[in-house]
């Protein structure tokens, strides 16, 4: 009985985590759960009410169209032992090598550089991006540290994004359900 109990404890402490780490595969099509997720952070940090018309204000492009329910926001991920390739809902593709080595790329503005570091840590993937705020040269630095984790059954992806700037720190949680 005692031996059985010890084996169960050992399985719990060591066996199951080892099993789950080995089984972590983030590949798949992931649909954003808009109910359970935090609102996406605004691209702009406005300090007054926007005075412009048209598409301004939220900083989000696109959207769900003019009629009916908004279209689902789908992210596609390909994951193997050494790399993670993410196709964003807008179709942009970003490949990460999960070796923990920093690499740089131009920000979306084309005017500044972002330094990116991606690695596997336990059962999670951690992606850290550091760039001037908004990708504009000369701004305060913004570090975004994303921690990707899967539910035990592999059907729910949680991305916890820590946004760290001198002025403030925020955490945004985004939940995706496997399609």
């Amino acid at each position: 009985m005692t031996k059985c109990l010890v084996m169960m404890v050992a399985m719990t402490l060591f066996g199951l985590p080892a099993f789950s780490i080995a089984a972590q595969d983030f590949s798949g099509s992931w649909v954003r759960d808009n109910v359970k997720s935090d609102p996406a952070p605004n691209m702009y940090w406005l300090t007054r009410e926007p005075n412009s018309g048209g598409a301004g204000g939220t900083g989000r492009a696109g959207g769900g169209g003019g009629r009916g329910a908004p279209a689902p926001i789908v992210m596609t991920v390909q994951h193997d032992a050494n790399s993670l390739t993410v196709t964003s809902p807008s179709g942009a593709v970003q490949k990460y090598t999960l070796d923990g080595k920093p690499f740089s790329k131009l920000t979306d503005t084309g005017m500044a550089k972002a330094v990116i570091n991606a690695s596997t840590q336990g059962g999670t993937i951690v992606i850290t991006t550091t760039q001037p705020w908004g990708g504009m040269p000369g701004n305060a630095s913004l570090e975004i540290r994303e921690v990707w984790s899967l539910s035990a059954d592999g059907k729910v992806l949680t991305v916890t994004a820590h946004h760290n700037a001198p002025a403030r720190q925020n955490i945004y949680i985004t939940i995706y359900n496997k399609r």
Partner: protein
Amino acid sequence: MTNKISRRNLLAGAVSAGLAAGSMTVAPAQAQQRSTETKLPDVWGQDFLYQWSPPANLKRDLTPGNSPLRLSHIQMTSAEGTDYGALFKRMRDDGWTACEVGSAQWLSRKLKDSDVREIKTQLKAHDVNFYGIHCAGNIIAPDPEAEQWQRHIIDAVHSADEMGCQLILTHVGSMYPNRNTPHPQNWSKEAWTRSVNALKRICKDTAGSKVEIAIEPVNSEAINNPWAQVRLKEDVGDPRIMSGLDITNMVHPGVAFRMTEFTNLVFDLLQDQIAYIHAKDFVWNGMMAGLNWSMNATGNMDYETFLVRISRLKRPTNVLVEFLTTEGEYQQAKRNMRAVAEKVGAKIL
């Protein structure tokens, strides 16, 4: 060298409403003394259309200078019963080492000599620089408002003298009574002449004072670009006419994404004509040309270049952080600015 105005440039200026027509139509004799056009240099040569995108691989010189800057906040008051020792201690504790005050409130009460002495004593004790009185003036408004505003500014100069302030800061305004409403003729010869004459009168009526009269540009007002600021000082012909530097007040879509270049251009043009600085930030986030204020060092302003260029001015400069809403936002702005300054080696007292 003549001051060429191509159709393309004229169109860009008209659409963006950024560059004052008054400063573009320079008299030939004066134009020969000026080597540059009133716009940023072309990126792709004169054959290209709007040059609103920045050049690729723009090199930025981020070598800091030695002049420290002080961060300023509007908390000053002439309200009766103010504990100035506590006020300036709170400023220092919050990281503000300079202040300016709005003229309407400040001039609403005549300070006693003992008040003036107490304020000066407490400023010195807490090492806070009370450098200026801000007059939201409209000295080219339709008469008789122009006259009233000019008298108000003259009163502010005398008060600044009494307090030992370096300057008063003001605007030339608009040819509408509300200076925030752009009048179609704000960039006409008439508006220019009214601006020059109003400032000549203010200088004459405050002759003997050492208080500088710093003019802040605003997009919607008659003075809204750095070239006009240089020219205004020349045309008024008084060394006390100086410039307030509020770069975001001069931004239009044509330069919104060329802020590193525009910042350098402004500092190159104005140099030590700059008497004080206001620090804001902005983004262009809509279909219309309306720009919106954003948290400092998160928008289109290049704060690294901005702070470096301030540190290269010959005299230490006060930098008022604005146009935020809550005290918490002011603290956030201050943290961003101090972090950027630390990164580039610009010293903030």
